[in-house]
């Protein structure tokens, strides 16, 4: 009757339309990421050879912080007028909602990355010495890792008293291995010193494990109370 892909598509379209009308998430996220880039380039002299080594870390930390801004927004929208309750009383599957939200966030964060990467390249004069095409894998897998966990923990943290603060507190410890993998893979490719293969595989495993885990538990979180 109500096919899960149909619900997912409808929710995704609805989210994109809402975002297109308000542009809340994407604007605040973009500006925030811009600020982070500028502040980082003050803090670490971008021309120094040493800073190129840490550029991978800077890029991902900037994206992580910016993604948190967007992730908090996704569920805030559902809380206004308690629209989430309307979803919860309907027979639609919880996982359809989760997948729609993850896909939506994946699109937002990818747009952000596409816009911010040129800035980093310019500021830090980046040039990949290793195989540059691997960066694409790292970006896709890394973004998915951030977004899957982020969406899940954002759904968890909206149920707590101090919503906005709770998300990073839950998200960051669990994301440590993924973040380490993203940073190390990016640095390996940029410097060309090591092979990034292990890290890409690790990221892929992380994605599979946590996508499965989140899908398994999301219904409990959504209908928990």
């Amino acid at each position, binding site marked *: *009757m*109500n*096919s899960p892909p*149909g*619900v997912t598509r*409808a*929710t995704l379209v*609805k989210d994109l*339309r*809402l975002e297109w*009308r*308000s542009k809340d998430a994407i604007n605040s996220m973009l500006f925030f990421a811009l600020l982070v880039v500028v502040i980082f380039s003050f803090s670490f002299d971008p021309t120094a050879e040493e800073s190129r080594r840490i550029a991978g870390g800077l890029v991902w930390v900037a994206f992580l912080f910016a993604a948190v801004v967007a992730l908090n927004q996704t569920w805030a*929208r559902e809380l*206004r*007028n*308690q*629209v989430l*309750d*309307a*979803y*919860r*009383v*309907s*027979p*639609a599957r919880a996982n359809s909602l989760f997948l729609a939200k993850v896909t939506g966030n994946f699109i937002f964060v990818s747009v952000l990355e596409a816009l911010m990467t040129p800035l980093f390249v310019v500021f830090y004069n980046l040039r990949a010495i290793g195989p540059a095409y691997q960066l694409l894998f790292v970006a896709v897998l890394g973004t998915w890792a951030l977004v899957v966990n982020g969406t899940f923990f954002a759904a968890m943290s909206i149920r707590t008293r101090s919503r906005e603060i709770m998300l990073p507190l839950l998200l960051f410890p669990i994301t440590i291995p993924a973040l380490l993998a993203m940073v190390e893979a990016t640095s390996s490719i940029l410097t060309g010193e090591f092979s990034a293969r292990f890290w890409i595989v690790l990221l892929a495993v992380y994605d599979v494990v946590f996508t499965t885990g989140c899908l398994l538990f999301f219904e409990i979180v959504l*209908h928990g*109370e």
Partner: protein
Amino acid sequence: MTDSPIIAVNGLVKQFGRFAALRGVTASFEAGRLYAILGDNGAGKTTLLRVLAGLTPATRGSIAVLGATNLREVCAHLGYMAHPSLLYDEMSGMENLRYFARLYGIQDDARCQAVIRSVNLDPSLALPVGQYSQGMRQRMSLARALLNDPRILLLDEPFSNVDVRSAREMAGLLGQLRDSGKTILVVTHQAALLREVADEFVWMEAGQIVSRTREFQPEEAK
């Protein structure tokens, strides 16, 4: 419909930390009737409705709706209208309903339009719901609850901040819905509006049902 109650709750307790909103509610509601649930603020009316809608699990006690104890199984037959509108402010009424229809597996626009017309609104109105008047918003909210043609309607304060004329109109509509065989539970402060249409008045106080009367008795019941 059978004679067995469509909703039966037994010893329902709902505790929020150091506060109990429901303190042992036992009641049954029969099919095809309109119940008005009355009481002061904090008497537990809204919590009871949320528990019945499957939004809040009870701390203790048992519930059976349409014979099912797992409310997820019967949620397709429930319509729930909350105090907040449960609508997206940025979208028009039709866009809202089209989205919620998908959640119930309803694909055609005709159903959405029919529901909007049944609450006396214009389906072609492009105004986002956020700019509706309170009365329009409540009616659109009712339309959302009616979308899946539910057998049981749970309505939380449908008349709040609605002008008298629209409120009367809505009360009349509820009577028609009841006559078409739906079971309706209405939580409200304005019991007088339902004087004509309600079959039974259920008074709650401090998390318990204190009395049930067929006739509307404004002061005596308190």
